[in-house]
């Protein structure tokens, strides 16, 4: 047997837990994303950053002029400050979903990038974690970029608002994990559109632009169970400084999404590539 550097690296992991699905090198996938990003993806990131800013100016200030201040949990705040956290949560979701559905579908079915990756000593969990890691970076960039715009405008009344950035990362993680798991089940490009059909109404009706109290109680109950509503209420609680135990509930919601998403993604990648 010839012991090349690659062999020595793989042999060093022999006997570790989960060695057949995980080689501890998801950073290589991450690095690939970084190289690809340098050359092409940055335009997509830029547009993802600009979108919530446009919404903020169009609705927050345009419509906000007519609406004036709004009551949120006993706090009177400008309308723009009410929708800003919702826009941040939504852009974290959109970025994560775009990465984990369209981008991943292409790599999976069209470019067959994962076939190449999994012919090396990498395992499917490396791929899943690396790809999702990229979605997190995107969530982080959106969070920081959006904060840099809205904080100087006085739309983040509370210092707790700084936690909206890690919250955006958590939200991106949850959506990316579930999005990637769903994508592995998709048979055609058209099926991905189903995800979009679901996303837009979720954005419009999850309490982004007005409180959920306008809806009948049974509908409020359903909307509150949806991930974007959870995300919006988490970020809004932080930016308005309305800190309560409910926020931990939202955090747990995303932790469950992450675990479920990663579990199914790894399982499916194993089934797709190791069959």
């Amino acid at each position, binding site marked *: *047997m010839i012991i090349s550097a690659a062999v020595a690296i793989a042999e060093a992991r022999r006997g570790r837990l989960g060695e057949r699905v995980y*080689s501890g090198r998801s950073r*290589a996938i991450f690095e690939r994303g970084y190289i690809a990003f340098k050359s092409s993806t940055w335009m997509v990131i830029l547009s993802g950053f600009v979108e919530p800013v446009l919404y903020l100016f169009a609705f927050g200030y345009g419509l906000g002029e007519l609406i004036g201040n709004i009551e949120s949990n006993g706090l009177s705040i400008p309308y723009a400050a009410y929708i800003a956290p919702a826009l941040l949560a939504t852009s974290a979701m959109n970025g994560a979903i775009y990465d984990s559905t369209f981008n991943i579908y292409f790599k999976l079915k069209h470019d067959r990038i994962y076939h190449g990756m999994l012919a090396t*000593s990498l395992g499917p969990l490396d791929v899943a974690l690396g790809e999702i890691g990229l979605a997190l970076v995107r969530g982080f960039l959106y969070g920081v970029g959006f904060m840099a715009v809205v904080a100087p405008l006085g739309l983040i009344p509370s210092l707790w608002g700084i936690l909206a950035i890690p919250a955006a990362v958590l939200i991106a993680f949850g959506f990316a994990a579930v999005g990637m798991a769903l994508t592995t089940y998709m048979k055609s490009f058209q099926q991905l559109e189903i995800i979009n059909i679901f996303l837009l109404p979720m954005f419009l009706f999850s309490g982004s632009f007005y409180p959920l109290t306008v809806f009948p109680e049974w509908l409020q109950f359903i909307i509150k169970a949806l991930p974007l509503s959870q995300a919006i209420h988490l970020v809004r609680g932080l930016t308005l400084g309305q800190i309560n135990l409910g926020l931990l509930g939202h955090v747990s919601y995303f932790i469950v999404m992450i675990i479920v998403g990663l579990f199914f993604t790894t399982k499916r990648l194993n089934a797709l590539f*190791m069959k």
Partner: protein
Amino acid sequence: MSSPLITARGLTKKFDEFVAVDEIDFDVARGESFGLLGPNGAGKSTTMRIIGATSQRTSGDLTILGMDPEKFGPQIRAHLGVVPQQDNLDMNLSVSENLYIYGRYFGLSRKFLKTKIEELLEFAQLQEKRNAKVESLSGGMKRRLTIARGLVSEPEILMLDEPTTGLDPQARHILWDRLFRLKEQGVTLVITTHFMDEAEQLCDRLVVMDKGKIMAEGSPAQLIKDYSTKEVLEIRFGSERNSEMADQLRGMCDRIEELPDRILLYSEDGEALLEKIYSAGLHPKTSLVRRSSLEDVFLRLTGRTLVD
């Protein structure tokens, strides 16, 4: 002689009811160039994926470098260079970035890769294309890059699935030349192909596969000797009359194969046989004497041609 690098016994792969690989046995020795020859759907690629530890066998035994791929997938894959049938180069990256990142997937250091990439670019004759996007490469260049990529981890075994399918003759010859060099360096090659000339050129030893089974095994020369005659006479009477004429020709030679467009006559001396046919008053529209090839072996074994 050292023990074989790859040993398969009763190797079987089923997809639901469909048996893709049906109890095959083979060994691959260190440093040899081993071929799987057969038509599309013979089970060659499936066999390759099982060896490559990216597909699990249904039953049978398989040992690669003394390890079971089901238990030590990553360890085995670290020994293998894989060149898939369908190119899966990273379209978002440049030529040298493709080599770099593939090395990173194996966990190789940046320092090691820096010199390795230069070596591989030279080997693949792609130095001038190092910063080009993969999309802009020709089919032959892409395939050479895929092979170079497969070599980044300095594998002991290079697995090539249909390496020259879709390439023009010149690109094929360049590729064959590169593969010869690897063989000279002691890399063990496992190659699938449905081109008999490729199998004859590249393989020291091969198995002929059909419908998931191994039909015969040996060196190209030995297989031709065992399953065919030295020469083949190909004649055409026109598609209307071929079958009628075939009946008259039977008995004039060792064996006769009737194809839709031509008749193949197997004989030790093709020219003499052609003379005999002319003197019997038969006048084929075209005639060609050639040496027997693996195509003839396959025809003999299965009654079908390799490329339809």
